[in-house]
């Protein structure tokens, strides 16, 4: 499960960490990625692994359009306005999916969805293993992009101090647009990759989105590697809690962890001190 959480959280940590926008519609972009995989599989018999290559540019474009139509207008507004806007976007996307594709549960069943991989007495699903590998790869690529490229440095500078970035001649609107589009491309890709594992329906994103926030806070806002490690920690807490105390307890444990991190180390387990207020 850690790999799946990481895939979803990487996009969120970008948007949350750099733009400082609490995007409550993140789960709905995941759901749209799942629907893309479902329709491509049902109508064109395309494997989700192939659809992944189409989804990244497609969702990058969707991110750009959403930024221009919705996010640009609220990027400098108060957190309350941003929250109301993204909750509204979330509800609108859910209901759009409901109108277009009904509330029925759909399933994507490529060959790898039913292929178990057995390792040292434990079984994994091949789709899940591949999702994990892609999550790690994507995280490393984004990490290198942020650290090694000029654009990455510009994005980090904007996150740290928007006003100083403007004074240095950085086009912050362009940075936010790129950040949002990258975040949506990442979560769209996550939706495609998890489609063989979970049913596809209009509210499919809800079960992951809150948990992604836990991961992002745990790992440190805007920290890609932190998000990956945070995902593994949340998944481990969840599994251990479920096994030893019962499934009903699992959310209690990871939300206690969430509260504990917010109280004692608000920058996250791996984020640099002050990142929660300043940026990365």
């Amino acid at each position: 499960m850690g790999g799946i959480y990481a895939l979803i959280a990487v996009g969120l940590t970008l948007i949350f960490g750099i733009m400082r926008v609490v995007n409550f519609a993140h789960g709905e972009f995941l759901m749209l990625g799942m629907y893309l995989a479902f329709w491509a599989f049902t109508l064109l018999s395309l494997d989700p692994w192939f659809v992944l290559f189409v989804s990244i540019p497609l969702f990058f474009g969707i991110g750009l359009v959403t930024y221009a139509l919705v996010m640009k207008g609220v990027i400098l507004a108060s957190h309350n306005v941003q929250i109301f806007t993204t909750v509204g976007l979330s509800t609108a996307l859910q209901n759009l999916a409901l109108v277009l594709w009904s509330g029925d549960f759909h399933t994507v069943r490529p060959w790898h969805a039913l292929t178990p991989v057995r390792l040292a007495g434990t079984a994994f699903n091949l789709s899940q293993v591949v999702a994990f590998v892609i999550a790690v790869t994507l995280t490393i690529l984004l990490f290198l992009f942020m650290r090694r490229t000029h654009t990455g440095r510009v994005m980090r500078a904007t996150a740290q101090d928007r006003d100083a970035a403007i004074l240095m001649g950085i086009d912050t609107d362009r940075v936010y647009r790129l950040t949002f589009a990258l975040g949506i491309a990442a979560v769209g890709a996550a939706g495609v990759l998890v489609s063989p594992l979970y049913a596809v329906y209009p509210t499919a994103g809800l079960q992951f989105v809150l948990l992604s926030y836990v991961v992002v806070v745990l790992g440190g806002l805007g920290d890609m590697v932190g998000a990956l490690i945070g995902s593994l920690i949340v998944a481990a807490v969840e599994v251990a809690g479920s096994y030893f105390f019962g499934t009903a307890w699992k959310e209690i444990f990871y939300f206690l962890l969430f509260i504990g991190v917010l109280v004692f180390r608000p920058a996250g387990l791996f984020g640099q001190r002050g990142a929660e207020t300043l940026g990365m």
Partner: protein
Amino acid sequence: MSRRLLVAAVLTLVAVTTGWLVAVFAQSGEYKIGVLEPLTGPLAGEGKRHLEGFEIVRDLINERGGVMGKKLSFVVADVPDPTAAASEANRVITRENVKIVTGTFSSRLCGAASEAAARHNVIYWETSCVDPRFNKRGLKNVYRTEIDATGFGWYNIDFIVKHLAPRFNLQPSQLKIAFISEDSSYGQGVTESAVARAKEVGLQVVGGVEYYNFQTINDMTPIIVKLKQLNPDVVHHIAYTNDAPLFWRQAREQNFLFKALVHAGATGYGSSDFGKAVGNDGNGVFALLEPGPGFKVESLKPDGQKIEKDFRDAVQKRTGSYPLGSHQLAGGGLWLLKLVLDKSQSDDPDKFRAAVMSLDLPVGTMINGWGVKFNETGQNSNERVQHYMLQWQNGQLVSVWPEEFTTNRAKWIPLGAWDARK
């Protein structure tokens, strides 16, 4: 009185009078009831099928003269959650002026909707939810046509003891059963009654009940690992939506082998969504429901045969398929409402209640082969709401038990290896 005040008073009077005239005129040819369904949100799939069942039987009723001499019509409201169920019940009662409210498919919704209706002294007619607390709140005008959860638990254990144990060559006292369930009042109600009944009849209940939230569960592996260690013969799993295919897929991945899985209700394994999600990999799962393909209509009383055939034909015509669980629950419940209104000829709560209590129809006289005998709490007798065990066989849920009512026979007992269930 100033001129402005006079104009305002006249306009108000005109508006009120017009509204009243419109309401009277609109009601003269038709009789409206409120229908609350989850048409959006996680229960939307079943909610829509449930509404479809209501609409099909509404048309059957209108072809036969309607109710109380009027054409039956619906005021439909979307109730995705309990808050919406209460507020929409209030709205249809106060704004649409309905005297009877029905719905709601789900045990998550029926409690809130019926409380709201009861506050207005309006009749609440539930056709599907099975929450055992529903009829234990002392609400005089609240009725339920469907079995309650204790009945589900009782039927399931009866099936396991009478049908499965002999096929496993086990005495009931040798049979190990494990319980997992989603944690709403539906899952808890069915599971608690099944656990109690299992202990009564001497089954070995292994482990505690594993409860989980169906809306947030995304990994069943920890439960499956625990169950593997307990090694049960039968898994009793009450699932709601996505949790059924998730458990089944992960049980297969983990190569968790057991002899049978038994569910109850039109959700989870009892929903057509399960078949779509897992295809023939779902072969062998049991779900307690209304009658499915293979059911012998001739086993019903003559009245029951006629209406059951008409209902099936109408569903076939509209959907192209055999009635699904949600169609049957809504259809059976609405037809029973028509029988009550035929008798009471009134929606006055006291006259309506007298008509409900006077109905005494044996099993086999209604849609789904149900009978009718309400008790003082407004619950149709569990014994009269005959249920049947269905099994997934090659992508279709078919009736398999009691065997005297069906031409199909249960297969894969015990369930073999995962790849051998063809």
